[in-house]
């Protein structure tokens, strides 16, 4: 009984911000100020203005962010999984060192890197481009991915690879055909984690994409739209709502896969 009451109280506390956001996205400035929790004077007008805000094209922001998420995930899996396989299956000192080398990267905060990366990307002619951004974001996912994948592959019996090798399959084929399909839970975990981190990233797109490229992700778009007019609540609330609503709906529908996916790979790895 007390457990239930306590949990429902917590639910209320967790949801209050969402409630405030939602009701106020449909109210005028006066109603927001005078009665922030009430339901008086609902209107669709602020939402309409937020949708057509020249500072932040919501649809384009979503498209750009989605492209980044897909590109980073594909690249990250494509690069990290085979590397992790080699590391996990080799007893050579060389690869042990390589593992530690990658592991060190998990402790490097992204904010520390973003400034010097600007100069690296500039040298490569990739500054302010989708390519440069995707490559950098992918790199940030590599250390933890390789760590998790290598741990997971270690639980896959090596007999399977040897059997494939006896059948004459090369290493590449053994990996992609035999081992990789077995890594599904770990890959799912990483994809979920990377999706959240790329989707919600703020500093990296803000600095690497910059103003010249005209590319906004959902977060940098929200920043551009909200920070300048922070008191015009009829801009703040609808913009924030637009930024999170689709993602929340997606989360609620996919929650089972997301939450179980998060744990499946993590526990075994």
């Amino acid at each position, binding site marked *: 009984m007390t457990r239930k009451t306590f949990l429902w109280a917590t639910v209320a506390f967790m949801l209050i911000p969402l409630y405030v956001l939602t009701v106020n996205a449909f109210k005028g400035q006066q109603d927001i100020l005078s009665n922030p929790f009430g339901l008086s004077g609902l209107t669709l007008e602020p939402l309409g203005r937020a949708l057509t805000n020249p500072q932040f094209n919501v649809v384009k922001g979503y498209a750009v962010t989605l492209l980044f998420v897909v590109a980073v995930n594909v690249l990250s899996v494509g690069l990290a999984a085979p*590397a992790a396989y080699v590391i996990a299956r080799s007893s050579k000192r060389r690869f042990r060192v390589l593992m530690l080398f990658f592991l060190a990267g998990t402790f490097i*905060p992204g*904010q520390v890197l973003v*400034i*010097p990366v600007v*100069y690296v990307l500039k040298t490569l002619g990739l500054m302010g481009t989708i390519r440069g951004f995707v490559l950098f974001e992918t790199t940030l996912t590599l250390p933890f991915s390789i760590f998790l994948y290598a741990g997971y592959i270690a639980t896959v019996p090596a007999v399977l690879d040897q059997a494939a090798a006896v059948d004459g399959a090369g290493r590449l084929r053994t990996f992609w055909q035999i081992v990789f399909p077995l890594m599904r839970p770990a890959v799912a975990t990483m994809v979920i984690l990377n999706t959240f981190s790329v989707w919600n990233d703020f500093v990296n797109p803000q600095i690497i994409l910059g103003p010249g490229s005209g590319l906004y992700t959902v977060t940098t778009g929200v920043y551009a739209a909200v920070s300048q007019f922070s008191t015009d609540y009829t801009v703040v609330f609808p913009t924030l709502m637009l930024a999170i609503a689709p993602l929340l709906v997606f989360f609620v529908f996919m929650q089972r896969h997301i*939450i179980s996916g998060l744990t499946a790979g993590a526990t075994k790895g």
Partner: protein
Amino acid sequence: MTLTQEAPPVAPARAVPQKARRRDGLATTIMVAPATILYVVMLIIPVGLAFYLSLTDWDGFSANPAFVGAANYVSLFDDPDLRRAALVTLLVAAAGTAGLNLFGLGFALLVNGASKANTFFRIVLFYPHVLSALVVGFLWSAILGTTGAVNNLVTTWGGEVIPFLSDPTWATVTMIAVLVWAGFGVNVVLYLAGLQAVPHSLIEAARIDGATRWQVFRNVTLPALGPSVTVNIVLSLVTLLKTYDLVVSLTAGGPAGQTQTVAYLILWNSIHDSRLGFGSAQSVILMLVTAALAFVVTRLRRRGELAVHQ
């Protein structure tokens, strides 16, 4: 692959394994090289660059940065802003880690077990993680600001404004609270996963022996959760030490710069003040501190786990 096939066979008797080995060698390179190259170019070189820049007085764009040796590191130590930011960051990391893990483990125990209600609770506890820290900060500042939703209500009822974001102590506490609010759902999920690994038979046995709930938790569940606890603490710590987005959107570093974190200061110095060399020195220090703390925590926890098992 064609190249290896065209390679001249050496000793005919061992031709096949050698060919296979060479083919495998190439395959290994194909599998490891791209990730390694990207990692070196985009992560190791920048780290090296940060270290090099920390020894210069570069503003970020002019032609010739002057080499100043350790001057930036020396001025780090008598920079009052950094001292304050370092304290704030450590406080946020320590209190935040404690909060995330207490709430994470506590709620994991409360919502453990399969039921419709528990699924719902998990969703609600986890959902803030789906939102970016930037959005979370804007949202809470609209709710807790001096003219925000809560204070509006309070003043309409004739109360005093609550200085959530205008008093340094309040603002720091508010920031930590929001970080915990937004993040502990992840810890709940990770601890739930850890709880699956606790052998049910052990708990049953302890119950039958007449152990109280607390005794079961203390002597059976917690020791079995050891590795989960380590992972959770290290993850929380590493994440919180680089708190930046939330500072930007919730407090903008204020009031009076009292909620600036080290990550915030690094970007402020490097970009706003065009003191890239100085900012880089801060970066190098933050990197070292993060690695050291993570290492120490892992070591301590490992020792703790061993002690428990013995």
